[in-house]
């Protein structure tokens, strides 16, 4: 049922009352909305103030990043290995550029830009966003820099900048050790989206320690702050935010020794690693030939790159951690250690008739040594003795001893790629080749041939562990912990191996020509010659075969022999023999540690013969390479003679 409402009687009085009520409601609504507006404004300006202040500030201030100064890298005595050098650079600020073509033409005249430079600059200007500077030229000399600087007022948008560039005082000697820096790649920028990566003058570690310890070396960028309008017009310069330099990095390296070893390697392709046997400190770690990290950091030319990558001495590889070699006879101390650990009497003699008969196969020795004990076996590098011991102990025992000495291991070091090589055992062969381990495999491994592969760094660790009797872990950062637990073998037994190695150099051994010319300091060591390819009939890869098939020459050693302080490994690729090529280098490098003047004198004689120091020879090589490139390639034999090892 529908309810019918009586029509409301409207009079002047009810009307006035209704008006009063409704206008009160209206006034209330107005006041309410007013309160809402005040509340809203309070919310924006008080509660959200911080957020909006930041937004206003990021509107107002345009920041140009200033690349941070990279942390120095210094050696154990604080001597600089990598530093920063003032660098005069010219940038363009696209926003401020008024007449692009005229400006570039003026710059071209003032600092001599090439057509390629101009094309690159134009391309970068196209890609540049807002205030992002575009690099015009770096590494300018003062005159050209000044020529632009004095005309800066007439060239809006041109910004002469005094920046920093990386400098390595020892050049190629530290190339592989330290690495180099360079502009970040487009890919790195895409990954991080960090505007610093596209800031002119910013360099990122590209290899070696520079790359691995990038985070510690980089520092924090500073900023040039400019107040700009919405249209990007600069209004005034604000106070700059200074950069925070990266951390200084102290290495265990002895820069003098590093440089000496690099120079002493001469024109050979090889490596030297020296380790302090008290702490495991790596004192030198050299791989030659090398590249000059200075020219890499400035941006290497196409020619230079071609030359380096086509060199058969592989200057782009750090051989100390990436080169793998059969250790040859330098492995024999490990086999000796395995025998001692198995309880073999060191005085027991094995008769060497010039080889070892296994079934119907005869494994040759280098000579006919007659009856040999452990001491004489090491001194004479008698294969027969070690064949016998290897077979008695078994491959598992030999491999365990090799690992005890640090072979086949990767160490906690800041290098981008370390290869850990191979210490083979029956299980490994089964896994790797699906074949059973044979007795002849054991014989080959016992003298450091066959499947065994080691890096020069591992060889140096092996030498250091024999010298110290401790399982030293190599370290290169001065603040890394020292790890040196004792080896799992009685001290006097290790002493037997050391005395054999003393005999090698100072008695009737294979390296007597390389004994130290120092009063009261003797060097102990072990030579090794490793076959590059299997040659029929037991012939060695000597002078009669092309360079790249010649045997590698290896040497491990330590000094002083009675109270070891330093251990070293030297590997000379295709050096033909350990005693001829590697041991003399070890002798001179260790001499440098005890008597630098004597060592320098030896070196200067060699360098006079080779044609100058590293820099001079590299420059000469570059000139020769360019000349050769211009002409048809010379005959193979001619190219080879220049590379004959010293």
């Amino acid at each position, binding site marked *: 049922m529908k309810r019918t409402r009586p029509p409301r009687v409207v009079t002047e009085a009810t009307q006035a009352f209704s008006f009063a009520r409704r206008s009160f409601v209206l006034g209330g609504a107005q006041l309410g909305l007013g309160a809402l507006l005040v509340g809203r404004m309070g919310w924006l300006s008080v509660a959200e103030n911080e957020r909006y*202040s930041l937004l206003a500030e990021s509107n107002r201030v345009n920041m140009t990043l200033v690349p941070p100064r990279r942390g120095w890298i210094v050696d154990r005595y604080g001597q600089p290995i990598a530093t920063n050098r003032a660098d005069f650079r010219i940038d363009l600020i696209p926003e401020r550029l008024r007449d692009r073509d005229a400006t570039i033409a003026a710059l071209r005249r003032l600092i001599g830009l090439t057509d390629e430079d101009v094309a690159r600059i134009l391309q970068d200007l196209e890609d540049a966003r807002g205030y992002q500077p575009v690099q015009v030229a770096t590494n300018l000399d003062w005159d050209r820099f000044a020529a632009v600087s004095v005309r800066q007022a007439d060239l809006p948008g041109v910004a002469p900048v005094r920046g920093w560039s990386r400098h390595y005082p020892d050049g190629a000697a530290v190339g592989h050790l330290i690495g180099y820096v360079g502009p970040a790649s487009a890919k790195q920028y895409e990954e991080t989206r960090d505007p610093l990566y596209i800031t002119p003058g910013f360099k990122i570690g590209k290899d070696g320690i520079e790359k691995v310890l990038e985070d510690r070396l980089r520092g924090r960028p500073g900023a040039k702050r400019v107040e700009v309008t919405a249209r990007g017009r600069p209004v005034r310069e604000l106070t700059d935010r200074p950069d925070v330099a990266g951390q200084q990095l102290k290495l265990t390296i002895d820069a003098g020794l590093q440089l000496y070893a690099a120079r002493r390697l001469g024109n050979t392709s090889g490596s030297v690693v020296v380790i302090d046997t008290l702490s495991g400190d790596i004192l030198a770690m050299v791989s030659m030939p090398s590249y000059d990290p200075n020219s890499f950091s400035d941006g290497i030319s196409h020619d230079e790159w071609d030359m380096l990558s086509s060199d058969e001495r592989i200057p782009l590889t750090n051989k100390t951690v990436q080169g793998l070699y059969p250790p040859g006879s330098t492995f024999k101390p490990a086999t000796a250690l395995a025998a001692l650990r198995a309880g073999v009497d060191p005085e027991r003699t094995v008769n060497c008739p010039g080889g070892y008969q296994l079934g119907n196969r005869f494994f040759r020795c280098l000579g006919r040594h007659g009856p040999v004990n452990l001491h004489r076996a090491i001194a004479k590098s008698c294969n027969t003795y070690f064949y016998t011991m290897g077979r008695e102990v078994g491959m598992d025992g030999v491999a365990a001893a090799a690992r005890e000495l640090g072979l086949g291991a990767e160490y906690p070091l800041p290098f981008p790629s370390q290869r850990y090589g191979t210490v083979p055992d029956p299980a490994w062969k089964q896994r790797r080749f699906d074949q059973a381990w044979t007795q002849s495999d054991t014989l080959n491994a016992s003298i450091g041939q066959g499947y065994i592969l080691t890096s020069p760094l591992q060889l140096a660790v092996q030498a250091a562990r024999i010298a110290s009797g401790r399982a030293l872990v190599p370290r290169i950062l001065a603040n890394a912990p020292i790890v040196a637990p004792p080896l799992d073998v009685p001290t006097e037994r290790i002493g037997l191996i050391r005395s054999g190695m003393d005999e090698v150099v100072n008695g009737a051994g294979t390296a007597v020509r390389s004994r130290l010319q120092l009063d009261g300091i003797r060097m102990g060591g072990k030579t090794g010659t490793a076959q590059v390819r299997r040659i029929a009939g037991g012939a060695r890869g000597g002078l009669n075969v092309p360079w790249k098939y010649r045997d590698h020459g290896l040497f491990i050693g330590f000094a002083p022999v009675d109270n070891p302080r330093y251990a070293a490994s030297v590997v000379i690729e295709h050096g033909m023999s350990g005693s001829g090529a590697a041991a003399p280098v070890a002798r001179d490098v260790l001499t440098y540690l005890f008597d630098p003047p004597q060592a320098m004198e030896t070196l200067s004689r060699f360098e006079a013969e080779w044609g100058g120091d590293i820099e001079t020879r590299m420059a000469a090589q570059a000139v020769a390479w360019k000349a050769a490139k211009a002409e048809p390639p010379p005959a193979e034999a001619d190219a080879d003679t220049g590379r004959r090892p010293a």
Partner: protein
Amino acid sequence: MRLSIVPARIAGAFPWRIILLVLAIGGFGLTVLYSAAGGSISPWAFTQGLRFAVFTGLAIALSRLREEFWSAIALPGYAITLVLLFAVELAGAVRGGSQRWIDLGFIRLQPSEFMKPGIVLALAAFYARLPIGQIRTITAVWPAALLIGMPAALVMLQPDLGTALMICAGGGVVMFLAGLPMRLFVGGALALAAALPIAFSMLHDYQRNRVLIFLDPEADPLGTGYHISQSKIAIGSGGLFGKGFLNGTQSHLDYLPEGHTDFVFATMAEEWGLVGGVLLIGGFLLLIRWGMRVSARAPNRFSRLTAAGLASTIFFYVAINLMMVMGLAPVVGIPLPLVSFGGSAMMTVMICIGILMSLDRSARGMGSAR
């Protein structure tokens, strides 16, 4: 409402209080315009100051007129304004594009501005003449709807969404106060809510965009949402006390668009902070409250409705502008009266104030007739 320092006799004769309040708001506005120009009286503060002086004079002149004058010209004035709106629409149709003014050579006349007080006066006059018994019948509704609908539709065609809204709102307030049945407004509100999607589909592209951007300004921070975003940044970064006079960066570095016109409040808030904002909003609320009191004191229906309607018109200006500036409403292009640079809104609001003063004066002149 007694001002103690001014003798009562003079206070009755001349509306000191309200003139001072208007001068305070306008003066503050000029200060903000001076800063918006980077600390210069040109190009805005000086011109605006002249206008302000002229229109204040106009308001005082209008205040001398008697209530009967307004009652008499209400409907004819409305008719003339409506014809002018037609004329603008015709001229626009001929010339093409959006046309809001008639160019008389020396001044660009914007008839839609006159319609804001015009609709209030016309409706007040209509309800004053309507026999009191018919207020709850259909006779009270359709003529009013027609009076509002015609100018609103014409202004919408220009297209000027903001002004159309204000005409509807001003008319609606008068209808509400006239005592029309409550269900009409509730029903109307519901119908409006239902019609919103349809109305939205009929909007121009740029208007629709503004509404969409209002709902999500961050969706297009560099395009249409830029205004709202930058305005909020300016207000938010001002904090409690602001960045200080002449120190606003959003306005001085041109990040805030329309910082001297529609978004002048943001310019002010950046430099004067919440304190300045509260003072300005408080000033406007005082002005509007005065208008509502004039209405409450008014001796007859026409004065009551006119005063409340004009006060509400000023209120709508302020409220819509501030909501728009603070990101609570879409950008519809309503300036902040007395503060924004520009003559039209100032003229309209000064006319409103002038009529209010005139009605106040008439009420006082008649003593305690009621």
